[in-house]
């Protein structure tokens, strides 16, 4: 960020989110873009952490193997606690979601990096995949009994239709909140850092701006992990509804 010819401040906090073709030219669906590059790096990070890290298979783990085991145990226990033993069948899918989001988020914190999870295109697909899978799974596993999710049997009879409408609305809002929460948090943090960086061009406030960037960066490190965690735990909660639709 710099001042333009007139000496005025120029803020382009959203420029970092632009999708660019890596080798120039029009962006078709198959064009390698910066998002493809950083998703590829996320794959690389997953391999480095979980495959290379656990290569030695030592009984007393090295540091990287410890991290791999911690990640595994963290998500495994989450799925087991929320969805029960039955939910462990879906553990690899949930682990895939978590590892992708957490790696993409953390790689996006590298200066000048691109963050795939800051785009609604990505998070909406993730959230819709969860939503559709969970809904289909709910009907396949429970049949019409899945609709019992919306019929709150513990409430007074008169209130149940009203509650059913509210429950249905909240059910269909799930993918919206699920996707916007992740992309919104990541995008907002990156944009705020960029705005602080714009202020750093003014000598008088640049120390404050640099401090602000530092503080925001620390916050973003937290947000990167917490949002991946939240996305994963919500997926588990939705999956639990599909497996056990009774309140």
């Amino acid at each position: 960020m710099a001042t333009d010819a007139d000496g005025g401040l120029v803020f382009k906090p959203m420029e970092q989110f632009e999708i660019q073709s890596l080798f120039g030219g029009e962006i078709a669906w198959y064009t390698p873009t910066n998002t493809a590059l950083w998703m590829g790096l996320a794959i690389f990070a997953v391999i480095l952490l979980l495959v290379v890290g656990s290569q030695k298979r030592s009984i007393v783990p090295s540091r990287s193997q410890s991290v791999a085991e911690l990640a595994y145990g963290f998500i495994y226990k989450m799925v087991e606690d929320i969805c029960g033993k039955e939910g462990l069948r879906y553990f690899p899918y949930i682990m895939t979601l978590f590892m992708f989001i957490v790696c993409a988020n953390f790689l996006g914190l590298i200066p000048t990096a691109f963050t795939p999870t800051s785009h609604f295109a990505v998070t909406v697909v993730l959230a819709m995949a969860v939503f559709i899978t969970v809904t289909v799974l709910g009907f396949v596993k429970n049949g019409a009994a899945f609709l019992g999710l919306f019929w709150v049997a513990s409430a007074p009879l008169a209130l149940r239709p009203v509650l059913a409408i509210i429950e249905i609305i909240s059910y269909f809002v799930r993918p919206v909140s699920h996707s916007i929460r992740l992309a919104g948090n990541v995008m907002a943090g990156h944009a705020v850092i960029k705005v602080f960086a714009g202020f750093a061009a003014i000598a008088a406030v640049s120390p404050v701006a640099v401090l602000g960037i530092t503080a925001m960066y620390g916050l973003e490190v937290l947000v990167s992990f917490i949002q991946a965690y939240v996305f994963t735990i919500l997926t588990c909660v939705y999956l639990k509804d599909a497996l056990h639709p009774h309140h």
Partner: protein
Amino acid sequence: MATETTGADVAASSPGMPQLDFSTWGNQIFWLVVTLVVIYMILSKVALPRIAAILAERQGTITNDIAAAEDMKAKAQEAEAAYDKALADARTEAHRIVAEAKAEIQSDLDAAIAKADAEIAAKAAESEKAIAEIRAGAAEAVQQVAKDTAQEIVAAMGGKADAKTVDAAVTAQLKG
């Protein structure tokens, strides 16, 4: 958010949020699906089974080690009991041997004392006999000397000494 109105890169200017530029969605969704499939393959084929195996192996090792440690402890206690028993046995055996040895020595000693006593008695008897002989020998010698002396004296006095008479006289004198 101020938008730039002048500059060389105006051509690249896009709407406020690149996220809402739906022309790039197809591209992003395509690469996202590719990425997710690749990560899923890596996780389900390699990483997760491997980590699960490592964790199971560690659990097994820990369980085995604890069992082995308990085994060892039991063995150590057994060995200690066996050692104690062996010690007690050895002690009683030692006592027995000492008592036996004492008894044997006592009997040997008694036998030796008896034998020595017998020998001493024999020697004493022998000595007494020898002394008696010597005493008898001495008395006889005195008699003989007395007789010889008397005969010589008689001869010196000028008498004609009859040996038999002298003997009888000396014998009578000695008895007297």
